[in-house]
C-alpha cells in the first residue's frame, strides 16, 4: 500500500478525505480452541474530522476489540476478517510495517483504562514523554523541553517535578494526564480513548473529562471515545454508536440517541439506569435474557431473543441499518421496527412496596469512636478516625466516599474481619460485639452478614453453587437434611436463581448470577443487617438494575437493614434512607438521604454530586476539585478536606479540624462554614446540583 491518499472506498459508508476514521463492514474474529469466533460483525461508522464519536456498550460487546483493530494491535489470534478501516483516508489494514509505524507515530494515538500500567515502570516519566518527540526526529534536549511544554498544557502544575519521577510515584489522575499528554504530543488527527476514566475516582474523573473536552477544542483532534458509561458518553460525544453483541445496533447524534432512542436495546439500556427523577426505589427496569454466544445467531436480529417487540420477522431476517429521517442529523438503527422501539414493554420484577419501615426507635447496630490505624511499610496509615454510626432495623444507610476514604475498612471492622483500634465500641441490639468475628456468638454471626464487591473472590471457585449455599444454611441457619433442601429451594427462588444452576461452579455463571449466589448466602441465616460492599460495581448497568431490584425486594420481605457502600451516588440516591459521606477516614456528613442530596451540604459532598455526569442534566454548572486525594498515611492538618476545598474560608480550615455541626434534625456536617453561608453559596454559585436541573 502506498502512502499516497487512496481514493474513497466503495462500501456502505462513503469515506471522504475529511473523515478522521472510517469503518466499513468490519468483521473481527478470534481463533479460540481451534475454531474461529466472530466477535464483531459488520460494523460501519465514521468519525468526521474534529468530531467526537462515542462507542457505548456493555462488557463483551466488542468495543475495545474495535479500538485495537483500528490501530492494528489485535492479539495474535485475532484478525479483521472482512471490511475496511481507514484513518485519514488511508487503508490501515494494508499498510506495511514502516507505514504502520509512521501512522501510529503521527496520525493516531490511544489512551486506555489503567494509566498505571500504560507507562513503563522503570523509565522516568519525562523520558517517556520526550520519546514521542525523539521519534519525530527532535534531539534529546529539545524533546525534553517540548515534553515539559505538553505536560504544562495538560495542566500539570509542576511539569519538571513530574518528569523526574517514576510512574509509581504519581497518582492515577496525574498518570492519566501524562498518558494523555503523550498521546497528544504528536498532535494526532485521531485520538482513541478506551475507558480513560473508568479506573479513576469520581472527582478525579470529572477533572480529567473536563481536561479532555478542553484539549479537544484546543487541538481540534477527532475523538473515538469508548465507554460503558452512557452519561460519560453523552457528556463527551457529538455522535454515538451503541454496540450489542458485536453489532452496531444504533448510531446517531448523542442527544438524539439518548433522548429519542430507536433501537429496543438502547431503550432497555437507558431505562435500567437509576434516575434522579425516578422516585425512591421505584423498581428499575431490566433487560431479560442473556447475551448470545458469538456466532450463535445465524439469522435474524442479534437482540431478538431478549426483545419484547420481537416478531417472526426479527428471528428470520437480519435487519439492515434503517436510516432515520427525523431532522436530528444522520442516524440509523439496525431494527425492523425502529419507529416502535420506545413502545418496548416495561420489564421489571418487583412490585414496589412504597410503605417504608421508619421505626428508628432503637438503633440495631451502633458504632462509637471507631478508629483504625494500619502499619504500612513503617508508616502509620489512618484508615478510620473516630467514626460514629448507627443503623436502625430495616433501614438502608448509604456509605459514600472515594478511594482511601475508609469505607471498606469500616465494613470490615463492623463485620469483625479487622479489629478496630482500642477504644472503639460496637454494639448489636445493645449487646457489645466482639472485635473479631471468630470471637462472636453464633447469633451475632448470623445477624450480621456481607455481600462482597467481587463475587469471583467471594465465592469459592472449587465449590458448586449448591454446596456454597448449603454450607451457609447449615452453619448460619442450622438447617439439616430435608429441611435444608427445602430451604435451599426457597432461598434460590427468592434470589431468582434457577435450579439448573445449582450443580454448577461459579466460573460457569455470569457476574449477575454469581452475585445472586453471594446474596443468597448472606441471607441464609435470616440476617438483621447485611453490609453490601459495592455489590454492583463490577456489573453491567442492565445487570446492576436487576441486582438492585433484588436487594430492595429482599429488604421488603425480610425487614433487613443495609449498609450500602458505593462510589456511585446514583445508586446510593436510589437506595438509601440515610447517607454517610467519608473522606480520608472521617465522616464529613451524615443525614437523611434527601436532606444530604438537596443541601446545603458539605463542600465535599457538593463536589461529589457535581462530579458525576448524569443523563438528566448535562448542562449543570459544576464545582471542580483541584489536586489529588491526599495520602491517608499523611492526612492534612486541620480539616482533612482543606487542600482541595473550593469553599475554603481561611486559616481556620488549615489548622483546626471542624466538629460535626447539626444542619437539620439528624443531618450533621463537619465544616467551619456556617450552615446559612453554605446554603447561600451553594444555591448561588454552583446551584444545589440535585435541586436545579440546568439553568
Amino acid at each position, binding site marked *: 500500500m502506498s502512502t499516497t491518499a487512496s481514493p474513497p472506498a466503495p462500501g456502505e459508508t462513503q469515506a471522504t478525505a475529511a473523515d478522521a476514521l472510517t469503518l466499513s463492514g468490519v468483521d473481527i474474529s478470534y481463533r*479460540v*480452541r481451534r475454531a474461529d*469466533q466472530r466477535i464483531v460483525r459488520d460494523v460501519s461508522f465514521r468519525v468526521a474530522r474534529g468530531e467526537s464519536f462515542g462507542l457505548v456498550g*456493555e462488557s*463483551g460487546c466488542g468495543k475495545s476489540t474495535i479500538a485495537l483493530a483500528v490501530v492494528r494491535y489485535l492479539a495474535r489470534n485475532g484478525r479483521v476478517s472482512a471490511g475496511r478501516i481507514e484513518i485519514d483516508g488511508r487503508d490501515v489494514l494494508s499498510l506495511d510495517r514502516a507505514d504502520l509505524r509512521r501512522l501510529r507515530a503521527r496520525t493516531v494515538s490511544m489512551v486506555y483504562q489503567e494509566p498505571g500500567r500504560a507507562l513503563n515502570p522503570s523509565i522516568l516519566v519525562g523520558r517517556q514523554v520526550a520519546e514521542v518527540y525523539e521519534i519525530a526526529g527532535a534531539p534529546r534536549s529539545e524533546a525534553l523541553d517540548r515534553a515539559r511544554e505538553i505536560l504544562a498544557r495538560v495542566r500539570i502544575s509542576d511539569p519538571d517535578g513530574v518528569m523526574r519521577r517514576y510512574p509509581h510515584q504519581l497518582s492515577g489522575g496525574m498518570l492519566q494526564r501524562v498518558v494523555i499528554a503523550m498521546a497528544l504530543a504528536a498532535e494526532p488527527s485521531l485520538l482513541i480513548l478506551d475507558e480513560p476514566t473508568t479506573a479513576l475516582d469520581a472527582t478525579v474523573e470529572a477533572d480529567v473529562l473536563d481536561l479532555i473536552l478542553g484539549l479537544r477544542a484546543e487541538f481540534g483532534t477527532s475523538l473515538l471515545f469508548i465507554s460503558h458509561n452512557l452519561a460519560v458518553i453523552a457528556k463527551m460525544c457529538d455522535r454515538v454508536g451503541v454496540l450489542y453483541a458485536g453489532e452496531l445496533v444504533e448510531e446517531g447524534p448523542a442527544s438524539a440517541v439518548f433522548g429519542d432512542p430507536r433501537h429496543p436495546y438502547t431503550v432497555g439500556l437507558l431505562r435500567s439506569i437509576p434516575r434522579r427523577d425516578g422516585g425512591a426505589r421505584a423498581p428499575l427496569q*431490566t*433487560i*431479560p*435474557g*442473556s*447475551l448470545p*454466544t*458469538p456466532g450463535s445467531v445465524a439469522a435474524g436480529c442479534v437482540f431478538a431473543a431478549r426483545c419484547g417487540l420481537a416478531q417472526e420477522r426479527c428471528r428470520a431476517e437480519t435487519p439492515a441499518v434503517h436510516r432515520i429521517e427525523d431532522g436530528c442529523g444522520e442516524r440509523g438503527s439496525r431494527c425492523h421496527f425502529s419507529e416502535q422501539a420506545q413502545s418496548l414493554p416495561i*420489564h421489571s*420484577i418487583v412490585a414496589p412496596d412504597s410503605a417504608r419501615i421508619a421505626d428508628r426507635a432503637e438503633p440495631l447496630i451502633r458504632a462509637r469512636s471507631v478508629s483504625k490505624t494500619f502499619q504500612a511499610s513503617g508508616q502509620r496509615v489512618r484508615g478510620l478516625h473516630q467514626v460514629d454510626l448507627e443503623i436502625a432495623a430495616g433501614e438502608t444507610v448509604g456509605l459514600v466516599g472515594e478511594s482511601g476514604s475508609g469505607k471498606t475498612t469500616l465494613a470490615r471492622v463492623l*463485620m*469483625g*474481619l479487622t479489629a478496630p483500634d482500642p477504644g472503639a465500641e460496637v454494639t448489636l441490639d445493645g449487646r457489645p460485639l466482639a472485635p473479631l*468475628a*471468630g470471637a*462472636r456468638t*453464633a447469633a451475632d*454471626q*448470623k445477624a*450480621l*452478614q*456481607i455481600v*462482597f*464487591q*467481587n463475587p469471583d*473472590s*467471594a*465465592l*469459592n*471457585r*472449587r*465449590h458448586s453453587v449448591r454446596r456454597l449455599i448449603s*454450607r*451457609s444454611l447449615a*452453619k*448460619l441457619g442450622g438447617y439439616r437434611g430435608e429441611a435444608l433442601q427445602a430451604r435451599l429451594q426457597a432461598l434460590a427462588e427468592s434470589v*431468582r436463581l*434457577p435450579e439448573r444452576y445449582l*450443580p*454448577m*461452579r461459579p*466460573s*460457569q*455463571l*455470569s*457476574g*449477575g*448470577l454469581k452475585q445472586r449466589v453471594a446474596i443468597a*448466602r448472606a441471607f441464609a*441465616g435470616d440476617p438483621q443487617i447485611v453490609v453490601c460492599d459495592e455489590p454492583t460495581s463490577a456489573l*453491567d448497568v*442492565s*445487570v446492576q438494575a*436487576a441486582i438492585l431490584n433484588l436487594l430492595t425486594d429482599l429488604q421488603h420481605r425480610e425487614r433487613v437493614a443495609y449498609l450500602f457502600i458505593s462510589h456511585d451516588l446514583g445508586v446510593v440516591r436510589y437506595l438509601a434512607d440515610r447517607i454517610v459521606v467519608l473522606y480520608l477516614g472521617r465522616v464529613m456528613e451524615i443525614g437523611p438521604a434527601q436532606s444530604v442530596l438537596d443541601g446545603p451540604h458539605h463542600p465535599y459532598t457538593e463536589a461529589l454530586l457535581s462530579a458525576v455526569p448524569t443523563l438528566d442534566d448535562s448542562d449543570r454548572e459544576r464545582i471542580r476539585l483541584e489536586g489529588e486525594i491526599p495520602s491517608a498515611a499523611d492526612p492534612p492538618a486541620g480539616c482533612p478536606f482543606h487542600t482541595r476545598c473550593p469553599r475554603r474560608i481561611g486559616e481556620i480550615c488549615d489548622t483546626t479540624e471542624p466538629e460535626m455541626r447539626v444542619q437539620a434534625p439528624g443531618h450533621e456536617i463537619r465544616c467551619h462554614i456556617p450552615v446559612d453561608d453554605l446554603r447561600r453559596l451553594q444555591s448561588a454559585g454552583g446551584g444545589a446540583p440535585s435541586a436545579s436541573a440546568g439553568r
Partner: protein
Amino acid sequence: MSIEALPVESRAALSAGAGDLRRQFLRDLVHQKAFMIGATVLGFWVLAAIFGTLVVQDPLAQNLSAINQAPSASHLFGTDQLGRDVLARVIVGSRSILVTAPLATLIGTVLGTVVGLSMGYFRGIVDDILGRFVEAFLALPLVVTGIIGIVALGASDTTLIIVIGIVFTPLIARTVRAAVLVERDLDYVAAARLRGERSLYIMFVEILPNVLAPITVEFTVRLGYAVFTIVTLSFLGFGLQPPTPNWGYDISANVGAVTAGYWWEVLFAAVAVATLVIGVNMLASSIESALDAS
C-alpha cells in the same frame, strides 16, 4: 425472571453439561503433543518395570566368558564387565527408580502441602519460624543435603526415599505457601470466617482445593527432579546396593570401562535416564499449560 448474560467463554463449557470443566481440562491435555510423548515414554518404562523380566534375559546372570562384548544379535546392548546382558539391566533397572522417585515425591508433596498451608494461612510467627527452616534447607543444593541425610541414616533405598521426601518438603512448602497467601486474601475465606468456620476447615476444605493446581504441577516437576537426584546419588554410591540393576549405580560401576572403548556399558543406561526425566518433564509442562488454560 431475569437471567443475565453468561460470559462468552463459559457457554461452550455449559453446553457440554455438568462435570465439564474436568473434561475440558482432559481435552486440553490430550491435544498437546508434549503430553502424548511424555505419557508414552512413562508408559513404556512402567510396562518395562512390570513385565520387563518376561521379555529380556536374566539381568543378574554373569557370563565371564562373554564380558565387555559389543552390541550384537545375541546381546542387543552388549554385555558389561561381568558379562551380564546390558539390555536386561537397563530394562529391569527401571524398577527401583519407578518405586523410589514417586514415593519420595509423594512424601515431599504431602508434607510440603501441610507445612505450606500452615505457613500461608497462619502467617505471623508460624510463618517466620518455618520460613527460616525452609530457607536453611534451600541454602543447600539437593545433592549435598541428600549426602548428609544418607551419611546420617545409612545408604539404602528407604533412606533415599525419606531423604528426598524431606528435602522436597521445603521446596513444595514454599510454592504452596505462595499460592495460599494469594487465596487467603480472597473474600471467600473472609466469608467462611464470618459463618464461624474453624481454621482447619478453612485450610483444608476451602483453600486446599484452590491450590491443587500448583501442587499438581509441583508434584510432576519434582518427580522429574526425584529421578535426577536418585540417579545422581546412586551414581555416587548412596542407593540400592548391587547386584540389583540400577541405572545410576550401573553407570558408575562401568564408567571406568569407557576409556577402554566399552561405551555401551554406560551409554544405554544414560539414555534410559534421559528419556525418563524428559518424559516426566513433558508431562509436567503439559499439565501446567492445560491447568493454565482452564
